[in-house]
């Protein structure tokens, strides 16, 4: 089992509602027979920190979102509107998000990115320059690894999918931290009992298994056998918690507030998972690859994005979850300032923007700056590596540390990069 060799110190706030602790406690109580925690419980965990990652697949245009340049040759037809933070303007396509800006911050100096979808996505997910000879885990796996406790019955790394997005690569961190996919916000695989198997029958056969295991491990007990029998208890717990994955249990009112779109439902699902303590939730919104008719497409896409996203941020803030949740909105790259002959914008990794907010982030801050027509970063260039460090630091993980895996230390994040310290709260 691997562990962080440095102490990420995800300090928990005992006064705040701790769903993860609550569920975990229930799970531990229910696990009963397996009193001893497996030795693999050496994760540094126990905090309520979470990460919400909204991935705008295909590459959202920074000029139609976080870094508008109205009235310039590259700026396009849309206006910039003021936000809840004096001085910060965003595109008029994001009126609802603009009102939540005081919970959020922007990086307008993303540079050195790739112009290739697959490569850009791997870089943003893994925080490492690609191609990397070493297969590295995605942010979700790293967050799950750092924050999960053994008694938490839900998966730690959940991907809510429309289309696109990566597989939730856990790489050397192992299958425990691999992404669990909720296709169209449906429950993860194998959370339906097979036809004809009642919960009672399931418990019955589990009890027989437990008796067999007791006898076997009585002779040959090890940390591995403990971990194995423990995982069965976890699975039963998760089935009991299956309601967590049912977004239809959220109030009708909230469905209305989030909108009846696919992305709205996915955001509501994300809120539900975060409320139940899942450490990493990714929602994928597709598709922003607007080589033609960039402006019409952004009206449509961001029109879908804006209201549910703003509602989600607002809800997290109102419910006190935002203090524990880092919010990221990112793409694999931005789009060319130059508008092409088809009124489109092409792939652009040179000067673009992302959004970070919530826990551990200086809210209302803007990092970096582009020039007047957005073609170059003129202040504080950063890239995927810095963002990866920053998100981890924001949840209290020492991103300069290492995981101890398979007999060696592996750096958590790219050692050549570091966090954007002025962006950290």
């Amino acid at each position, binding site marked *: 089992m691997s562990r962080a060799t440095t102490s990420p110190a995800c300090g928990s706030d005992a006064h705040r509602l701790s769903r993860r602790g609550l569920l975990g406690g229930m799970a531990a109580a229910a696990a009963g027979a397996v009193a001893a925690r497996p030795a693999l419980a050496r994760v540094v965990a126990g905090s309520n920190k979470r990460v919400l990652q909204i991935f705008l697949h295909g590459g959202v245009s920074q000029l139609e979102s976080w870094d508008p340049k109205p009235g310039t040759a590259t700026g396009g037809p849309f206006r910039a509107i003021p936000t809840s933070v004096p001085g910060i303007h965003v595109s008029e396509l994001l009126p609802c998000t603009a009102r939540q800006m005081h919970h959020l911050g922007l990086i307008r100096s993303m540079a050195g990115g790739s112009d290739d979808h697959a490569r850009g996505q791997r870089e943003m997910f893994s925080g490492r320059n690609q191609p990397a000879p070493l297969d590295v885990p995605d942010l979700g796996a790293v967050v799950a690894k750092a924050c999960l406790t053994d008694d938490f019955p839900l998966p730690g790394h959940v991907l809510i999918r429309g289309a696109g997005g990566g597989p939730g*690569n856990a*790489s050397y961190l*192992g*299958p*425990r931290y*691999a992404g669990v996919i909720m296709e169209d916000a449906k429950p993860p695989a194998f959370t339906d009992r097979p036809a004809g198997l009642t919960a009672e029958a399931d418990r019955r056969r589990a009890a*027989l298994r437990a008796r067999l295991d007791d006898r076997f491990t009585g002779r040959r007990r090890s940390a591995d056998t403990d971990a194995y029998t423990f995982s069965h208890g976890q699975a039963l717990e998760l*089935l009991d918690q299956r309601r967590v994955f049912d977004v239809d249990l959220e109030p009708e009112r909230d469905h209305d507030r989030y909108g009846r779109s696919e992305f709205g439902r996915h955001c509501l699902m994300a809120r539900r998972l975060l409320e139940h303590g899942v450490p990493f939730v990714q929602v994928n919104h597709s598709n922003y690859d607007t080589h033609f008719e960039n402006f019409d497409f952004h009206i449509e896409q961001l029109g879908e994005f804006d209201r549910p996203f703003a509602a989600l941020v607002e809800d997290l803030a109102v419910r006190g979850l935002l203090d524990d949740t880092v919010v990221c909105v990112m793409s694999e790259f931005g789009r060319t300032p130059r508008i092409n002959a088809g009124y489109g914008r092409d792939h652009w990794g040179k000067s673009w923007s992302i959004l970070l907010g919530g826990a551990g982030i200086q809210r209302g801050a803007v990092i970096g700056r582009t020039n007047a027509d957005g073609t170059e970063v003129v202040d504080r260039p950063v890239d995927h590596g810095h963002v990866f460090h920053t998100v981890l630091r924001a949840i209290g993980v020492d991103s300069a540390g290492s995981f101890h895996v398979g007999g060696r230390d592996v750096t958590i994040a790219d050692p*050549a990069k570091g966090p954007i310290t002025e962006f950290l709260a």
Partner: protein
Amino acid sequence: MGSGDLRDGRHAGPRRGRGGCMTARPLVALFLATVALSGRATEPPAASPSDAGHAATTAGNPAAAPDRSPGADPLALAIDAIVEREAVGPVAEPCNDAAFLRRVHLDLVGTIPAAERVRAFLADTAALKRVELVDELLASPGHARQMALVLDAMLLERKGAGAEAAAWRGYLATAVADDRPFDQVCAELIGTDGATPATRPAVTFQLVREVDPLRLTRSVGRLFLGRDLECCQCHDHPDNADLRQADYHGLRAFFQRSSLFNPAADQPALVGETADGEVEYTSVFTKESAKGVRPRLPAGLALVGEPLPEPGDDYVSAPAKGVRGVPAHSRREALSRMLVESAEFPRVLANRVWAMLFGRGLVHPLDGHDPDNPPVHPDLLELLAAHLRDGGYRLRGLVRGIVLSRTYQRSSAPLPLDDAARAALPSFIDRLAAEQTAAEGALPALAAARDAAATRAQALFAADAAARDAVAPLLEPRAKARVAADAASALAKNAADELTKKTAQGESLSQAATQAAAAAALLPDDKVLGGAAAIITARAAEFAPTLEVARGALAARTTEAEAATAALAAARRAVEEAAVARPPVVDLTQADREAVAARLAWQGARDRIARIGMRLVLARDMIRHGELMATDPAAAAALAGSIDERRMALVQVARLRPLSPEQLAFSILTATGRLATARAAAAAQLDKEPPAALQAALPDRQAAVRGLYEELGIVQQQAGFLGAVAGLYGDPLAGDFQASVNQALWLGNAPDLAGQLQPGGDGLVARLVALADDGVLADDVFLAVLSRPSDATDRADVAAALAGRADDRAAAIAEVVWATLASAEFRFNH
């Protein structure tokens, strides 16, 4: 043999699935044609003293009766001698027949034994039944299939071969079935460019890494040289003086000139290589840099005496748009030879085979062969490496020797830690302490020899580098002179050709003029003829200067060509004269070899000292444990855990090890009875459409070829199931054991698995439903799933689970079967 990798293959599932879905019959036919052919050509393994015992048992030699007397395998004897001599306190009892049968089935043929097999083996009273079982399993096609899956995961690091998967697995399975020398196989993987049908499957190794020099460097370092040089791409290892940036780039230099070549859209990808291209690097820490890095194995031999060809001599086929480069001298091909002759290669391979059979390498992790991580049994690793090296790299003999050893056949029941266990320790400590003193005494001389040899080699290599530096600036002038000389010679040849042509024209004209004049003289009245003769004569006279011009041109071109040739000769002389200062290749090689050998001798001695020290500490801890028992029971208990772990590391007791994804998948299929169904379907398919290669196989190879077809047919047929398991379970050897909730959910709820527990067909549950007696039923379940008879408590549990379930007895039986499948006893090899 596990990839021993940090990343452990979450990609494996879907990719394997895809691989299995594709129809690759022509490729399968292709490799099986090779089986049939090579079956005739297979030579008996090279005999050596150490493998005389097993050589007779290989497939090529079914007639010779193997010596199966107890302990007849010399390798097994030698393994036990070392392990038992070095054991700290007692070693575990031999495991019982059921545990041995299950263990050896899982390890050699990748699945648990069928229930009837367990019954028969337990009832068998033959004294040598374990030896006979091992030989039978090793010769079976199931062994080829299992090893192919192990090698696939190891060599591709669970990346999956995609569309080539069937051909790739077939290639590996064939190599195992034929017990091909494994050094040849490995050399093939690295050296081939995939240009011929026979080398297509082997090039998969490079293609899955996109022939990327960096990825190949890392993989070859890890897989064959036992070192993860990853961090050395950018800097020397901060904590390990033996992992240097120069090592990484020296290895990379072998691959630097190779790249992926994609011919036309419907053609398979190949490996292209250029004749030039050097590695340079700069440390991100120290800013030290190097250029023109010499290809060199990490801390090993350098590639010396590389040819310095002139343009025109450097390619078999020069790269161009749509044309694959094939250099006259391939660095990658040179690596393929040097790699398998390196000191590390047999050690790393032996360690991987050991890890496959024990769940942990003698060096662990498998890519952690470095001076600060000595093998747990240095002499044992050396023994196994020597067995491979001297025995022609036949894996089967190595595996046989290991599984026939007492060491492999130990029980996993915990070792005693009592006064009896401690009885012999004081004298053991005295012996070890004496060994330690002697070994430490010998170390300074070894260190001095190491330094002296290193200094000699460094001096020679420095001289060589200086000479190469002197030669380097002369190469371009020589290349230019060569190009100029070639061009001048071509021009001179053109001029000569032109003159020949003109001369013929002139002669023809002059003859025509003479003859026309003669005709005109004979026919003086023919004015027209006279006029024509005059014209021809005039033309002939006019042609003379043209001829002169051509002669002049030839003379000029010839002079230029001679000058250019002379210039080239001078440029070549300059290179040769500068190169004279290079030490002879044979001297460089010799010095390099001596330096590596002296370093390894010193390293070996250091490893032994470290391991003696470790065993001394363990022996003293065991004595201390006895004392603590009386004074501090809690401390004693903590110490006992650590003592147990160390005795397990010393292979004094068998380790519980999780089944690999492939073992788990095949074992589930075996237990539920689906494997038998799948096998029957694969066999029926062979009957229905016997592949050409099977029909063409010689009579004595029919069974073997058919067996391989059947096994690989099952793998392809069950690719979805295998892929699902691999995707969820990853590679337990990759790092440490993990049990995830996703795995447990799959085991509990996957429709595929639930389907296998339905009472339909002729699966296990259907068979059990027909049994009226609960005791007989319990025994059947335990034999089929846990590969052992049930005991009284088991039977009581089963009876309780079935009591009052007459109405839904099939469901109750399925619950019992599921409980055994989900048990820890099933999950682990014990």
